[in-house]
């Protein structure tokens, strides 16, 4: 009686089969390690005994109660926040300029914008180290020009990390804003112009508010990637400017306290997730009636 239902079931089964390879990969490479890390974070560690399969919240209590870790978390989120704000400030106008460009130039410049993503993170970061070191290109140039007497300290500072992170995160912001710009009706800019608005007014009163969902989703990507970035803070921050991900690395590979490292990693994950979810909720409430 129900050939349609049979066809439907068949189609659904095929869909599952088609998803299966990706699903298996996802399970094996993402879910399993994550669950193992989670379990590991409850174990305990002794210098002479190694990892003991106990179950307790002591690792979490250690991290949450220690001002040393508080500082690291605060620094991490501070760096991520400043990076996000700078990316929004740079990436939004950049996306608009690209959007207004003639198509011939646009494709060439889009490649320039995505450029940082095409270079290996280690190479890129070491490049920044060459530029920002005390005897690096920038300081040497400024000193030779006698604009400064002593080198400006950029390596091993949060500022240096932010500069290098902004460099690689701006493309994500540009792409997100770019997509939002393409969704808006180009005639709205002409309408504003015909009503007497100048270029700056058009940008701030008409274009930017419509592109805001793109800016906000771009911010979300930049923030979460910056908060969990490892290579850039590891190379430019060294031992002195620790962030959460480098701390996790040290716990695992130097102290060998895997359970504590796992607990810190889980806390970072939860913190980033919390920021994302609450941010998303605020954004949705703000824009649902306007853009849906």
């Amino acid at each position, binding site marked *: 009686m129900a050939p349609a239902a049979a066809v439907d079931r068949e189609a659904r089964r095929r869909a599952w089969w088609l998803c299966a390879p990706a699903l298996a990969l996802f399970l094996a490479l993402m879910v399993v390690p994550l669950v193992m890390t989670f379990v590991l974070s409850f174990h305990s560690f002794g210098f002479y005994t190694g990892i003991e399969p106990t179950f307790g919240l002591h690792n979490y209590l250690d991290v949450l109660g220690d001002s040393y870790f508080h500082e690291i978390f605060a620094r991490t989120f501070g760096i991520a926040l400043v990076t996000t704000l700078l990316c929004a400030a740079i990436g939004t106008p950049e996306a608009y300029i690209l959007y207004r460009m003639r198509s011939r130039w646009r494709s060439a410049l889009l490649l320039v914008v995505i450029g940082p993503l095409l270079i290996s993170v280690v190479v890129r970061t070491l490049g920044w180290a060459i530029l920002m070191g005390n005897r690096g290109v920038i300081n040497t140039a400024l000193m030779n020009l006698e604009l400064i007497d002593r080198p400006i300290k950029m390596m091993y500072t949060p500022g240096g990390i932010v500069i290098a992170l902004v460099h690689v995160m701006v493309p994500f912001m540009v792409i997100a804003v770019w997509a939002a710009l393409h969704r*808006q*009706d180009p*005639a*709205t800019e*002409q*309408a*504003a*112009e*015909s*009503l*007497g*608005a*100048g270029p700056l*007014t058009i940008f701030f*009163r*008409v274009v930017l*508010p*419509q592109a*805001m969902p793109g800016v906000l989703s771009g911010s979300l990507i930049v923030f979460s990637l910056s908060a969990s970035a490892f290579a850039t803070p590891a190379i430019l921050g060294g031992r002195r400017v620790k962030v959460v991900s480098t701390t996790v690395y040290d716990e695992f590979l130097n102290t060998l306290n895997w359970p504590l490292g796992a607990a810190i990693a889980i806390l970072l994950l939860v913190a980033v997730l919390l920021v994302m979810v609450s941010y998303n909720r605020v954004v949705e409430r703000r824009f649902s*009636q*306007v*853009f*849906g």
Partner: protein
Amino acid sequence: MAFLELKGLTKRFGEIAAVENFDLSVERGEFVSLLGPSGCGKTTTLQMIAGFETPSAGSITLEGRDLLAIKARSRGIGIVFQSYALFPHMTVAQNVEFGLEMRKIAAPERRQRVAEALALVHLEALADRYPRAMSGGQRQRVALARALVIRPEILLLDEPLSNLDAKLREEMQLELRGIQQRMGVTTILVTHDQTEAMALSDRVAVMHRGRLVQVARPLEAYEHPRSDFVSSFLGKTNRLEGKVVERAGERAGDLCRVAVGETVFAAPAPPPEIGKDARPRVIVSVRPEKVEFRAAGAGLVDGTVAARIFLGDHWLYQIETPLGVLLVTRQNVGPAEVETGGSVGLAWDAAQVRLLPFEETA
């Protein structure tokens, strides 16, 4: 001097001329339509008046002032876009208020003028809505209020009704015309819809391939088209290729005789555009509503009824004749006069025939 004057207006995109040597004078308070098929240059012309495109040649003057020397944002022109182009992040009232803010008008006066503009389009109750939550017709009204609230010298309408369904479109046509006349605002409408152009405007300017082919009052353009293109584009017509076989006499009102195939009938004297040839080829145009039914053999030509389509207020017949398939429309004021498959004679008043310069294709 006319209120708005376009002279020799030309716009080239590379090798292609989108608008060529366009002349048009618009009087203050007049409603003029730029009518033509897509790609005829009507939107480009509108964009040049608005200031979004720079002409390659020619001039635009408003009361003698050179409009081309003024930036788009200072021209004081109200525009209603095809997509309405409402600001989606602003409420209806904020949308309408935007132009007044740009003009640095004080808040109390702004509020009053926004209220007036919204009352004009019957949207007082929806002032705090966002455009997203409105129907196409309502958005259209907001766009109109936003364009009119700045008291523009010229109102430009770019296919404003093309996104509305047929019934709403007709209502909006009447309303648009009413508002335009009450405000007395000089209006230029761009449209490809000939019924819309004829219903709304004082004059229609028919464009074809970047050129202006005829400017006339709607009735004049419909009844006395100057070219094959205008004749076919405005309304339906029976277009026949024929030849003048006997020139008219010297007296006014004298008729000539034209032959279409084997059929010969009378027509008004050919217009001067047709030239002085003794037996020139011509396009013969007879509007479907001007054709009358006769008994078979009693008309100018006989035919059989191939199809009869009921269109509510009128019937549309397709009649197969030696001249080709002819269209005939009849008011629905009684029972249908002829049945499908029946044979009829067709006749028309010689004064209703139009002779046009011969062109290979319309």
